[in-house]
C-alpha cells in the first residue's frame, strides 16, 4: 500500500526529549480515555454499598456478580421473553448492517468506478447529507416510513439503514485511493461483469473499508431502542428492555451498571478485532485529519 501511495519511511528530525514529551502527552490523553471504561467495568461488579462511595473508587474492592444475577431475575420476570428482545436486536443488527454494507459498497462502486454524468454532484450530496443530525431528518423520515406502511415493524429500522451515507462515502473514498483503474480494466478485458468485478476484485481489496462500515453500523444499530417507529412490546429491542429494567430508582443502580457493561462490551469486542483495519480506513478516507 505504501508503495502505491508513494509513501517512504523517513527519519523524523526529532530529539529524544521531544519523543518523551510527546509520549507523556499521549499517555495523559490515553488515561483520560481509558478511565471511563475502567469505571464502567468496575462499577458493574461493585456491590450497592460501594457504588455510592464518595470519592468514587476506580477499582472495585469487593467484586460481586450480584448485579448480573439481579438483572437475570428481572429479565426472567418480564412478560415478553428476554430471548425475543435479543432476537429483535440481532435481526436489526444483522440485516441492517448487511444491507448497509451491500448497498453502500454497490453504490460506491458505481460512483467511483462507473462514473456517470452527475456522479460528482451525487457524491457532494452524500457528503452534504452527513452534516444533518438525526433530529433534523426525523419528521420527514417518519412521514416516509408511515407512507410506506412500515410503522411498528422492524423494516422501519432496518431498511433506512441500508442507505446510510457514511458507508457509501467511506467505501467510495477507499476505492478511489486503493483500486487502480488498471485492476478493473484487466478484469474487463477478460469479460468480467460488473457484479463479478465488484465481488471478486473490488470487495476483497477494500476489506478495511467494509469492516469499518460493519463496526459503525453495528454500533449504531446495537444501541437502537426502536425510536418512534416501534410500539409493540414483542418488537422492542434488547437496549429498550434493559433500559426499562434499569428505570427502577436507586435500588437498581447496580443492575444499571451491569446493563451498561453488557451494552458496551459487544461493540468493543467487534472493534478490537478489527482495530487495525479501522485505523487503515480512517487514514485513507482523510478522516484521521
Amino acid at each position, binding site marked *: 500500500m505504501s508503495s502505491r501511495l508513494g509513501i517512504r519511511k523517513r527519519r523524523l528530525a526529532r530529539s529524544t526529549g521531544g519523543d518523551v514529551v510527546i509520549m507523556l502527552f499521549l499517555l495523559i490523553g490515553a488515561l483520560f480515555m481509558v478511565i471511563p471504561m475502567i469505571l464502567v467495568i468496575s462499577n458493574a461488579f461493585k456491590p450497592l454499598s460501594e457504588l455510592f462511595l464518595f470519592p468514587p473508587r476506580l477499582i472495585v474492592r469487593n467484586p460481586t456478580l450480584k448485579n448480573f444475577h439481579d438483572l437475570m431475575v428481572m429479565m426472567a420476570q418480564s412478560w415478553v421473553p428476554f430471548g425475543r428482545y435479543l432476537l429483535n436486536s440481532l435481526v436489526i443488527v444483522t440485516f441492517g448492517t448487511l444491507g448497509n454494507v451491500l448497498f453502500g459498497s454497490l453504490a460506491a462502486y458505481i460512483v467511483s468506478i462507473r462514473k456517470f454524468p452527475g456522479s460528482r454532484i451525487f457524491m457532494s450530496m452524500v457528503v452534504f447529507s452527513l452534516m444533518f443530525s438525526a433530529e433534523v431528518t426525523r419528521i420527514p423520515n417518519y412521514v416516509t416510513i408511515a407512507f410506506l406502511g412500515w410503522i411498528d415493524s422492524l423494516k422501519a429500522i432496518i431498511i433506512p439503514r441500508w442507505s446510510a451515507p457514511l458507508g457509501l462515502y467511506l467505501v467510495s473514498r477507499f476505492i478511489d485511493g486503493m483500486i*487502480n483503474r*488498471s*485492476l478493473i*480494466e*484487466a*478484469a*474487463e*478485458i*477478460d*469479460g*468480467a461483469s460488473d457484479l*463479478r468485478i465488484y465481488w*471478486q*476484485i473490488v470487495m*476483497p*481489496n477494500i476489506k478495511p473499508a467494509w469492516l469499518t462500515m460493519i463496526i459503525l453500523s453495528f454500533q449504531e444499530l446495537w444501541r437502537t431502542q426502536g425510536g418512534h417507529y416501534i410500539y409493540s412490546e414483542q418488537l422492542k429491542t434488547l437496549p429498550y428492555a434493559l433500559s426499562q429494567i434499569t428505570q427502577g430508582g436507586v435500588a437498581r443502580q447496580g443492575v444499571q451498571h451491569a446493563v451498561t457493561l453488557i451494552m458496551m462490551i459487544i461493540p468493543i469486542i467487534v472493534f478490537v478485532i478489527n482495530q487495525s483495519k479501522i485505523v487503515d480506513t480512517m487514514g485513507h478516507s482523510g478522516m484521521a485529519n
Partner: protein
Amino acid sequence: MQPTSNVNAAGVVIDNVSKVFGRKRVLNSVDIAIEPQEFFTIIGPSGCGKTTLLRIISGFYQPDGGRIFYDRREVTNIPPWERQIGFVFQNYALWPNMTIFDNVAYGLRIRKKPASYIRDRVKWALGVVDLPGIEKHLPNQLSGGMQQRVAIARAIVIDPELLLLDEPLSNLDAKLRISLRKQIREIQSTLGITAVYVTHDQEEALEISDRIAVMDKGDLQQVGTPEEVYERPANHLVASFVGEANFVEGRVTPEGWFERPEAKLRVQLDEKILAKEVSAGETKMMIRPETIRVVEGDNCHVGGTITKRYYIGSLKRYVVRLADNSELVWETFDDRFSEGDQVKLRFTALCPISGEESNEGI
C-alpha cells in the same frame, strides 16, 4: 521453443483515427497498418498520444473519428472484452487478493473452460514466462519483474489475437528492463502473436521492434524499421527523439559539397544522397555522434577543440567546438583525448533532415 506461425494473430489497421479530450486534440488522423505477427512499437514523448492510440486499439477508448480493423473485421465499436486481446499494464495490474494461479486463470474461467484445460494452460503460460511453480504465491510475494512476467502470462494464456503492452517496463530498474525486453520479444516471436508495444524508451524500441511509429503531439511523424527511423529519420523531431544527433545547417553546392564556411566544415556528399535526397541550396544535415571519426592529415571534414569530455561506460562522449563556436557531439571508444585537444573529424554518414526542432523539446 521454436517460432511458430500463429493463425490467430491479427493484423491491425488504424484508419484515420482522431481523438479529442475536452478541447485538447490528442490524435490527429492517424493511419497505421500493422502486419500479423509483427512486433510494432509506438514511441514518443509524454503526452504525444501513444497510450491513447493503444487504448483506442484495445477498445477502452472510442475514437472521435476514424476506424479500427483487426484483419478485415471492423472493431471500432466493439468493447475490449469481445475482442480476444491481451493487455499488459504499466503497473502490472495483478489482483493482489488472488494467487498467481487465479490471476492467470481468470480469463479462462470467465470463458468457462474446463478445469483440467485451465490447469494445463496456466502451467504452460507460466512456463513461457519462465516462472514455473509459483502458482500458489500471492503477487506481493514476487519482485516487480516477476509480477510483470505474470501479467504477460495472464495476457497470453487466452491465446489472444493481439497483445497490447502499455509501457510494461517503465516501473522496473534499468538492468531488469534490458533483460525483460529481450524476453518479451522472444515470447512474441515464439508464439507468433501480433504485439503493439508502447514505450517512451527509444533504445527499448530500437532493440525489440520490427517496426516503430514515432508520434508527437498527436501526429504520426514516421513509421519504419528501427534502421529507417534511426538512420533516415523523417524529420528533425524524429531524429532528435530517437538517439543523439547533431544538426548542422549549411548549403549544398552545385558540385555536390555540403559546406558551412563559417565553421570551416566541408563534406563531399555521396551520390546516393545527391541523387535522391538533396538539391543545391540551404539545407540541414543530421550527423549521429557515433558516425564521427577522428582523422590525421587533410582528409578531415571539420576541425575543432574538445571542450567537454563525458565518461559513459565503454563509450566516451566529447563536445567539440568548431570555428564558428557551434558544437558537435562525438562519441568514440577512444579515450586518449582530453579537454583542450585539437581534433580533426570526418563524418561517415550524413542525413539531410527537414523540419524544425520541437518548441517543447521532444
